[in-house]
């Protein structure tokens, strides 16, 4: 559980820490300072030799308290709910060493820190700003504490340099940010030779809303609501991850029944979205039977959600210290019965789909990413498991009641193509249906929320992290409090932020008419990336 035997854990993680490190423990998070010159060595060792997975990299502006910016590199100890986070302090300087050549997945985090904090990663391979566009003043850094969130900025002009491919017969197709379908906005720049994609560069940031800054100013209740809107289709997972961090900072132990309810709702969210995704993948191949039935199954789930919680997206269910919505006996029976019906329905649809040679022909061998790319880019969730990255937060770092339900083996595929991502979703749907049924049987009686939740006191100058396996992949939250115990920084890292970088690789050497299908098989969140 969240509060493990601290001494035992401390012993275990000693093996990961450098000697004479001055380690500070915040619940299940071990932080220690490293000098700028040594950080490459430490991060390289943790990631490349000890094979810890990198969860996120972010910065905090602590100039008021410590007179420094800090940059955090969060790693997870596999199999335990324990996290190691070396950090560097930037006193009287804005330069920090770029580690992107050492660990490629760090690149976008560093670009993000450069753009939003005005810190400079020396020798960074790609110096372009991320998310904020050229109409944004380049000397304004919105996540610094001296930036007032309501500031009206002057619009400036500039030019964004796309990567260019030159050669005879190479032409470019600019697509978006507005698309013909009702999807989120994003620009894709294809360099083409005939119908094949030579290079694909996604450019996002069109739905940047300043969520990270808003987390600093909103009231706690509104922070929960904001976390539900980080990526609307993952409302429950995002708010769960956020609530978990606050619960750690406040030292709250959530009642068991609430943990089970969280598990159930999280799986209902996964089911709805996976149904929608398999339908959308089939629809994009033009297999309209599967497409229509996928949307229908998703809608059935959404209606169940609405019936149980009054919200199709399971919003306003999570709160600090538990959940707001209990399931009484008749609701539990209703849910159990409906899911049995849906499971049967689903298997019938899939039997027909898997019998279609034309569908499988489109799915197989399309949009392949290699295991090497997935490892370099840190590809998460469905896309990662589809190429053999055996990682699932529910198993590796269990939260809610996942430690108490049987999770079995993490489903993985090896091909890394659209079909593999499709198959992973099918397996996860079956698993989720089992998890919900099992949770409904095991759910204990009791409170669903901690009493006296109104007087919430957070630890001062503390840090907390939390991971949740959303339906796309792992959602990570990093939260820091200041000397008064107020939340001073929240970094929600949606899996999309990590996975977008694999899309360019997946598109390579495919033909352009297959790109929408490839993109759909990843189905990443634009808003979760743009924040």
């Amino acid at each position, binding site marked *: 559980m969240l509060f493990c035997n601290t001494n035992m854990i401390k012993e275990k993680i000693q093996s990961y820490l450098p000697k004479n490190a001055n380690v500070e423990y915040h619940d299940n998070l071990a932080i220690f300072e490293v000098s700028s010159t040594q950080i490459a060595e430490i991060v390289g060792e943790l990631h490349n030799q000890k094979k810890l997975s990198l969860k996120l990299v972010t910065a905090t502006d602590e100039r008021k308290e410590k007179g420094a910016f800090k940059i955090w590199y969060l790693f997870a100890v596999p199999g335990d709910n324990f996290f190691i986070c070396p950090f560097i302090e930037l006193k009287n300087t804005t330069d920090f060493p770029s580690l992107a050549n050492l660990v490629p997945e760090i690149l976008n985090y560093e670009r993000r820190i450069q753009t939003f904090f005005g810190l400079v990663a020396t020798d960074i391979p790609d110096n372009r700003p991320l998310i904020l566009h050229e109409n944004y003043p380049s000397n304004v850094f919105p996540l610094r504490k001296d930036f007032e969130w309501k500031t009206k900025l002057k619009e400036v002009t500039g030019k964004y340099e796309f990567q260019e491919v030159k050669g005879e017969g190479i*032409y*470019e*197709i*600019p*697509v978006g940010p507005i*698309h*013909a*379908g009702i999807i989120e906005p994003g620009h894709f720049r294809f360099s083409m030779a005939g*119908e094949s994609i030579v290079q694909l560069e996604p450019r996002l940031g069109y739905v940047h809303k300043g969520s990270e800054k808003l987390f600093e100013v909103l009231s706690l209740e509104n922070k929960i609501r904001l976390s539900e809107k980080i990526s609307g289709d993952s409302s429950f997972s995002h708010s769960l991850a956020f609530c978990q961090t606050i619960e750690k900072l406040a030292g709250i132990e959530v009642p068991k029944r609430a943990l089970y309810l969280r598990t159930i709702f999280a799986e209902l969210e996964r089911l709805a979205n996976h149904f929608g995704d398999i339908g959308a993948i*089939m629809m*994009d*191949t*033009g*297999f*309209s*039977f599967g*497409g*229509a*039935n996928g949307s*229908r199954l998703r809608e059935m789930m959404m209606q169940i959600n609405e019936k149980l919680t009054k919200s199709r997206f399971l919003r306003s269910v999570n709160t600090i210290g538990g959940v707001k919505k209990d399931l009484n006996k008749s609701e539990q029976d209703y849910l159990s019965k409906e899911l049995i019906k849906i499971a049967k329905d689903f298997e019938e649809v899939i039997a027909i789909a898997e019998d*279609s040679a*034309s*569908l499988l*022909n*489109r799915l197989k061998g*399309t949009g392949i990413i290699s295991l090497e790319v997935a490892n370099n880019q840190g590809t998460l969730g469905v896309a990662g498991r589809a190429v053999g990255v055996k990682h699932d937060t529910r198993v590796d770092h269990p939260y809610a009641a996942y430690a108490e339900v049987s999770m079995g083996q993490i489903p993985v595929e090896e091909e890394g193509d659209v079909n593999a991502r499709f198959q992973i979703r099918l397996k996860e749907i079956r698993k989720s249906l089992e998890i919900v049924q099992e949770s409904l049987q095991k759910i204990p009686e009791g409170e669903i929320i901690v009493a006296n939740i109104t007087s919430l006191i957070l630890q001062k100058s503390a840090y907390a992290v939390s991971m949740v396996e959303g339906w796309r992949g792992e959602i990570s939250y990093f939260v820091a409090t200041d000397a008064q115990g107020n939340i001073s920084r929240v970094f929600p890292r949606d899996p999309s932020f990590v996975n977008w970088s694999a899309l360019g690789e997946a598109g390579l050497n495919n*033909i*352009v*008419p*297959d*790109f*929408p299908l490839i993109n759909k098989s990843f189905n990443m969140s634009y808003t979760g990336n743009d924040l």
Partner: protein
Amino acid sequence: MSIFIWIIQLFFVPALSPLCIGIIRKIKAKLQNRQGANIFQPYRDIWKLLHKDEVISNDASWVFRFTPYIVFAVTLVVGFSIPIFFPRIAGFVTSDILFVVYTLAIGTFFMALAGVDTGSAFGGFGSSREMTISALAEGGFIFSLLTMALIAGSSNLFDIASFSQSIGGQYFLPVLLAFGGFFIVLLAETARFPFDNPATHLELTMVHEAMILEFSGKRLALMEWAAANKLLIFMVLGANLFFPFGFGTDVGLASISLSIFYFLIKIFLFCGAIAVLESTIAKFRFFRLPDLLFISFIFNVVAIGLIYSIK
């Protein structure tokens, strides 16, 4: 009487074609457990578009402006020239198979030009794909009609339709093969599955839709209408050349009524076949399409070979 027949021949295809689109969409919706729009919705869409303002790119030349009229006119002329339910009467000089095939090709040619005319990347690859497909489809198209012409001993479509009714059983296999080849061409030329997805919103996968992406208002209405006409033309050719049951032999009331009755049933069956096809298979990957068109060509070559062996 001739004038009367001519007028019906001229207006029949444009008047009925949106209905066929509506019927196909309705059947598809039902097959997907959806309610679907009214079968007359395509008429309303065209009416709506005809009343909308147009946006034309500053870079568009006369090709872009005139193409909708040319494409629509082509379908009118061809629709007028094909056997629908009247037998051959004097004056149908445009009913030769070569005339029909290459008049339709003029429409395709201008549509592809209009696609590249505005310089949009989508129009460009739409046109490129369309030319790839239609160049390969042309062989199958010509040869399937030629198979029937060889059997009937005439290259006039009315003669073929009339003669086909008395075709002996020995020609069963060549006619079936020729129809197989023709049906593949029908799907390719009218932008249906597995060549193109008429219902897609994914600009990168489009063929026909990508070419007409820059059109709006009246010109878009004409383009949509012309596409519907083309579909009906192909269905009429398929129905009357390969399955000429009940095709009118004289202009008497009884004969014509029977002819209309059979005709409507056949067209409905074609709509149903297309709808079922589009609901049960996925679109093919682009580079698999040439194989399919090649099969169409082979079917017809075999059919022609068989005819000579029979004769």
